[in-house]
């Protein structure tokens, strides 16, 4: 068995037993990246020297008796998360060459726990997209079929974990950007409760919806990196000052009596029959494992997507105002200040410009009440849907996405059909819930299908354990993509 075939927890055990070293494992992953990533294109920036130095340092720490949870484990970080001294672009030309003088809180946490950062993974520009096709640099391929998208915006991280180009990875999820690519790439992806992860150093797209998420090949792997990066950060005023429970200890696999809600609004027209079949089977499996299945209703589901596409662009229009070339990033010099600002801001890609305009419009005098103001009210209704549902059930189960991975180029000319990828994931971002996607089978073309499990505020342990129980019974993670090079 190759080192890169190991899951994170298997590698951790091997490191603990002294069967391998971090340098060995890191070198093995770097070699595989060399061989495989030209086809997958998951990493925008690779930092092999840093990684090997950090791996050597980790081995030294271990020799000195340190056994930090991710000590010596090579991981990837989405390029929307700032890394001190390493270029961070958010997938945009407007940040080409930008080297942050600070680490994001979650990166600091990774470093504290001894993880080895391999590099920065591809993303749709400013996390706006569902396929990585909006990255200004390249489109990542789905390891299961390189002619297909990996999902997005955290497509680079999902593809890297799926292709075994890192034992785990960090992403970010504003409307589904962790769960949707996890589903497309056949890996586990969690989007924790808003405030569970610090947003400090995470380049903002939509501040009230953005949250760092985690990818792993298994539920246990995902839990391990989540455990290491979650927590309160005084530099993020929206970070929750709540102790981090022992998530790894919560993975008992026992879900007897767990009440699982199935929202009727999530099994509607547009849902691919193969996906529906796999998800229904998964729900039946949960019942077999002792869960109680309850049909529920989330009546305002149909408003989630339009509400999202008012709130997210509105916040983005302000968040992206700072990119004008005065203090950092490239500057395209014009004849005067205004033309310099305009030319520099033309470095934004089309989708980013579209959302800035949508958001500017939604906030404008005379339109605020009709659009942004009303969206905030509808958001409250959606939140209340979940609140009510969680009085009845512990977990909500649904498909993660309506279809499996689509072909590269299929939806690039039709933003609306691209936006529909988020219909099952986006409600959660508008609420105070947490959610994850866990593999639940394959379609006829051999493409992975994801089961979404949604939990109440800060109930990550509950959904992780449910996913763990399901995964233990099905073991879809044991199937790995056969990447066409």
């Amino acid at each position, binding site marked *: 068995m190759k080192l890169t075939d190991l899951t994170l927890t298997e590698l951790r055990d091997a490191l603990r037993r002294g069967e391998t070293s971090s340098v060995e494992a890191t070198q093995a992953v770097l070699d595989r990246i060399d061989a495989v990533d030209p086809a997958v294109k998951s990493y925008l920036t690779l930092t092999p020297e840093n990684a090997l130095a950090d791996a050597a340092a980790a081995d030294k720490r271990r020799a000195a008796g340190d056994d930090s949870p991710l000590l010596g484990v090579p991981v990837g970080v989405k390029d929307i*998360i*700032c890394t001190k001294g390493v270029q*961070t672009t*958010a997938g945009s030309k407007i*940040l080409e060459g*930008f080297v*942050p*003088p*600070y680490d*994001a809180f979650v990166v600091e946490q990774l470093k504290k726990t001894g993880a080895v950062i391999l590099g920065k993974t591809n993303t749709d520009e400013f996390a706006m997209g569902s396929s990585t096709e909006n990255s200004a640099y390249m489109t990542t391929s789905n390891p299961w079929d390189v002619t297909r998208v990996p999902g997005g915006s955290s497509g680079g991280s999902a593809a890297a974990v799926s292709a075994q180009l890192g034992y785990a990875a960090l992403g970010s999820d504003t409307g589904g950007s962790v769960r949707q690519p996890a589903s497309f790439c056949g890996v586990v992806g969690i989007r924790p409760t808003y405030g569970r992860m610090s*947003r*400090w*150093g*995470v*380049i*903002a797209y*939509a*501040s*009230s919806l953005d949250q760092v998420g985690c990818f792993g090949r298994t539920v246990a792997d995902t839990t391990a990196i989540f455990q290491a990066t979650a927590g309160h950060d*005084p*530099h*993020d*005023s*929206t970070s929750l000052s709540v102790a981090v429970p022992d998530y790894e200890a919560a993975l008992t696999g026992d879900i007897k009596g767990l009440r699982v809600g199935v929202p009727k609004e999530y099994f509607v027209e547009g849902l691919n029959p193969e996906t529906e079949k796999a998800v229904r089977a998964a729900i039946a499996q949960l019942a077999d494992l002792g869960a109680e299945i309850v049909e529920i209703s989330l009546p305002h589901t149909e408003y989630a997507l339009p509400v999202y596409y008012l709130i997210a662009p*509105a*916040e983005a*229009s*302000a968040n*992206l*105002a*700072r990119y*004008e070339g*005065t*203090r*950092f990033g490239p500057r395209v010099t014009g004849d005067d*200040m205004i033309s310099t*600002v305009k030319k520099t801001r033309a470095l934004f890609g089309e989708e980013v410009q579209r959302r800035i305009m949508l958001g*500017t419009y939604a*906030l*404008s*005098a005379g339109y*605020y009440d009709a659009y*942004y103001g009303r969206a905030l009210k509808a958001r409250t209704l959606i939140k209340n849907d979940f609140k009510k549902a969680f009085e009845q059930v512990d977990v909500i189960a649904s498909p993660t996405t309506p279809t499996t991975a689509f072909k590269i180029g299929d939806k690039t000319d039709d933003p609306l059909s691209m936006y529909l990828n988020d219909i099952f994931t986006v409600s959660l971002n508008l609420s105070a819930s947490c959610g994850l996607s866990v593999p639940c089978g394959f379609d006829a073309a051999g493409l992975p299908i994801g089961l979404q499990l949604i939990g109440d505020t800060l109930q990550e342990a509950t959904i992780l354990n449910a996913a763990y129980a399901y995964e233990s019974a099905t073991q879809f993670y044991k199937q790995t993509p056969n990447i066409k090079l």
Partner: protein
Amino acid sequence: MSKYEAVIGLEVHAELMTDSKMFCGAPVVDSVEAEPNVAVRPLCLGMPGTLPVANKQAIEYALKVALALNCDINKFNRFDRKNYFYPDLPKGYQISQLDHPIGVNGYVDVTLESGEVKHIRVRRVHMEEDTGKLTHMADGTSLVDYNRAGVPLLEIVSEPDIHSAEVAHAYATHLRQILRYLEVNSGDLEKGVLRVEPNISIRPTGTDELNTRTEVKNLNSFRILYMASEYEIKRQTALIESGGSVVQETRGWNEERKSTFSQRIKEDAHDYRYFPDPDLPAIELDQSFIDAVRAGLPELPASKIERYQTEMGLGAADAKQLAAEKRTAIWFDAAVTAGGDPKAVANMLINNLSAMMNESGQAIDDIAVTPDSLVGLLVQVEKGVINKNIAKEVLAEMFANGGSAASIIAAKGLAQVSDDGPIRDVISTILANNPNELAAYKAGKTKLRGFFVGQVMREMKGKANPAVVNQLLDEALKS
């Protein structure tokens, strides 16, 4: 009564002298003195991924001001993003308070020179952050300094209750004094830490119309605030009387021509696209916090002036002068508490010490004379140990080298001589040495009495008790 009256509202921006900026740990520095861009952190440069954390000290300072201006305090405080592009605004939006400012519906009572009191309502007090500073170079380039970007800024907006340049000036001065008393702002207009912008319109006297107004910006002294307001009232009046109309615009002040000039016509209100800042959860102020800040407020100048007059019997001018600067007032209060007679302390402070401080350039906290030592000096005068003239000499010595009045009097032998013997001896000698003057006096030239007093005092180096000298001299001259 003139045909038109002015309607003026004042917008005042005051930087808060906190240790660090409004939303990050960068220090607040003197943005005129400091090298450019030394007091900056990733957040106040608007760098990607940075997040604001509200400064508790700034909220406390803002609360102090709102309370001192008699505002209703909003416990629920929310920050909003005010969106506009400018290179001195790092994030492309300013964090401000739109719908939920910390204070509303306040007022101040401003006393004019004449003693008349004007009640000016304060519409709102809200927290925001300052911008950076642009310098436009001769070659067409512009430089930007972000030291000031993110410094806590308080906006204080009055109702349009002001109807003359004099009242505008008095209100602004009053506000400045309060800010200095609260020690939240140095009041230095020239450095731009305090900025005063009047909105001015005119209307037929006696009506309550609100007409098109102009805003005058970049006024860097209260004298200019007065002149610009005066100028603007006259300009608008002349315009209306000649059948013209006022254009809504921003005007600047031309110091050479002593006139305002048009800077920017406001065709449309700028659309700032305000929305609640999702990075900053609303802040709910505890009643206990508000109570603690209120309890910690210092006595404000208006109250001091009132107290100095009614309780201590000082004149209005002296009371005002003593209360003008908090440190002077505190010094004065301490001297009175230490047992000094208020009038005597005020007299020494206003007539003697302030001249010495002006000459040496020292502030009252830095001088060697303390409230206690001044009272010690006054006790020596009261007891008759020294007279008032010698007291000035002793005070000068105390100011120059410190020490107590008693020790200086002893060391220099300045104690007043009241014993009859030595004074009588000196009088005899003086009369003997000036036979011509004595003869003239006796012949009826009684004005020469003053000459003899002067000679005696001079001989005794001013230490003789003047009452005793007078009495003994009269006896000697009669004999």
